[in-house]
């Protein structure tokens, strides 16, 4: 009798509290993330300029324009180039840093902190520092080239369309590699030492150990790092804003950057929203494919 009373009382009480606990987060998230995301579908079929209260629907015009616009194609190519280069370089550098930190005998924590610190910097600050380092007249890079007698290699790194995107990529590797290093390091430290010892007794050299034991066992960390660095590179914005503003010409204009420029610089918010939707679909597709492909080569322990 009394037991069943407690039970029913408890049930209505549970119902109440979970609802009220979740409600504030639910409301804010729905109003400030989901609602604008859904209304972007609506807005992408308009020619809205951002100011005019009279919003005109133009059907698929924005998407047609995107399909035919050389500027959008250029941005897409830049984005793909940037994403592939960043994923490869960031992961190679991060893995190398992780191996160094894992194997070095002295000051291990200090080295880890040094490699990690750039991750904590804002893209604006990091971009400014590198802009000065790469400056044509007074930058450290060109001064060094002069000092070692390679002055003829000097160039305006950010002003030359051939090198601008490459300069942004390399400085971003400097900024981001430390983040992935932490993930690889956690993976490395999870590999049992006995495995290495057994391999070395069997006569496997350092490279063979790395190639056949360490690397396959890091597949889980690699999956995570490749995905995160791919999405990070697709969303990259701050460095481009401060270092080149998408220039020279359109040499460093990526999808994220063209969205911003078109919507807030040129007052074409309808077109900007359509581009943003395409970026979103691209990110969704890439994430799904990567999860599928990379999960296959993970080794279970």
């Amino acid at each position: 009798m009394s037991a069943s009373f407690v039970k029913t009382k408890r049930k209505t009480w549970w119902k109440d509290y979970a609802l009220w606990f979740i409600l504030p987060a639910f409301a804010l998230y729905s109003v400030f993330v989901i609602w604008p995301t859904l209304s972007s579908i609506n807005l992408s079929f308009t020619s809205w300029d951002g100011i005019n209260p009279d919003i005109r629907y133009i059907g698929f015009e924005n998407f047609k324009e995107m399909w035919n616009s050389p500027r959008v194609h250029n941005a897409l190519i830049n984005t793909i180039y940037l994403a592939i280069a960043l994923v490869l370089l960031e992961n190679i550098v991060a893995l190398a840093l992780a191996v160094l930190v894992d194997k070095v005998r002295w000051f291990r924590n200090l080295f880890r902190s040094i490699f990690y610190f750039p991750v904590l910097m804002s893209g604006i600050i990091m971009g400014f520092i590198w802009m000065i380092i790469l400056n044509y007249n007074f930058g450290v890079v060109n001064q060094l080239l002069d000092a070692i007698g390679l002055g003829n290699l000097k160039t305006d790194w950010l002003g030359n369309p051939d090198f601008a995107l490459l300069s942004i990529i390399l400085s971003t590797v400097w900024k981001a590699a430390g983040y992935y290093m932490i993930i690889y390091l956690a993976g490395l430290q999870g590999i049992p030492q006995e495995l290495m010892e057994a391999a070395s007794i069997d006569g496997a050299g350092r490279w063979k150990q790395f190639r056949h034991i360490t690397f396959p066992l890091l597949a889980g960390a690699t999956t995570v790092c490749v995905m995160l660095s791919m999405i990070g590179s697709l969303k990259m914005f701050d460095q481009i804003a401060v270092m080149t503003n998408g220039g020279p010409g359109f040499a460093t204009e990526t999808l994220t950057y063209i969205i911003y420029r078109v919507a807030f610089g040129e007052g074409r918010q309808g077109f900007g929203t359509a581009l943003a939707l395409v970026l979103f679909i691209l990110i969704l597709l890439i994430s799904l494919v990567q999860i599928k492909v990379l999960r296959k080569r993970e080794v279970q322990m």
Partner: protein
Amino acid sequence: MRKTKARIRPGDVVLFAVTLIVAILFAFPIYFNIMSAFKTNGEILRDAIAFPSGFYLESFKYLLTKTDYPKAISNSAILTAGSIICMIFIIPMAAYGIERKNSKWTNGVYIYFLFGMMIPFQVYMIPLFKQLKTMGLFGNLAGPILIYIAGSVGFGVLLYTSFLKGIPREIEESAEIDGCSRIGIFWRVVFPLLGPVTASMVVLQGLGIWNDFLMPMLVLPSGEPKTMIVELFFYVGEFSSRWDMIFAGTTMSLVPVLIAFLSLQKYFVKGVSSGAIKG
């Protein structure tokens, strides 16, 4: 741990030397930034690598007395602290409701929240911009704070629910028998146990907000000082010949980050690895 007092092999020295060189390359841009903040503009242009000749503080003085930078510093601080405090009130409670209730509808809400982690800000920024104007939130600090909280719900709920799974319910049940209300149980019994997640949350989200650029630039009123990062971005264009001043500004933005990192290092590292689990 594993190398106990082994003798020093030449391989160790070589490896150390390689690591040291790489570390110098990595640390150089930060060294360059902080040194340049204490140099005159002429010194930066003459020799970028050298130590400053004196302890030149004019660029800091100029920045703090002749520009909008102090207002920008306070805006950055208010945005970061305000958003973090609200997040810590709202998100762990939602995660607790989801994890402990564990019914069909709360699982649905959980998936709905996680979906938000896949949506980049650039996807919804244009409609959001429009929406803030109609809601009357455009041009004050409340708008960005609400946006930051909403944007962190997915990641935060994921972090908190996975941690809550490891906390046994028995503790709560005994508090319940003692007649504690559900909200009392949460704040007095459960929340203190969530300390490590809360620390990671504060550190990672706080850093993200402190360093954020695009959103505050778009939604804070033009013509008034915005946040430190946004002002620095404008200074790069405006004071293109006063590098010393911009370096003083970046140093002021980096120092709190450096202090937080040195004192809370393990939470930064933990946050990265827990964030990585979601893959």
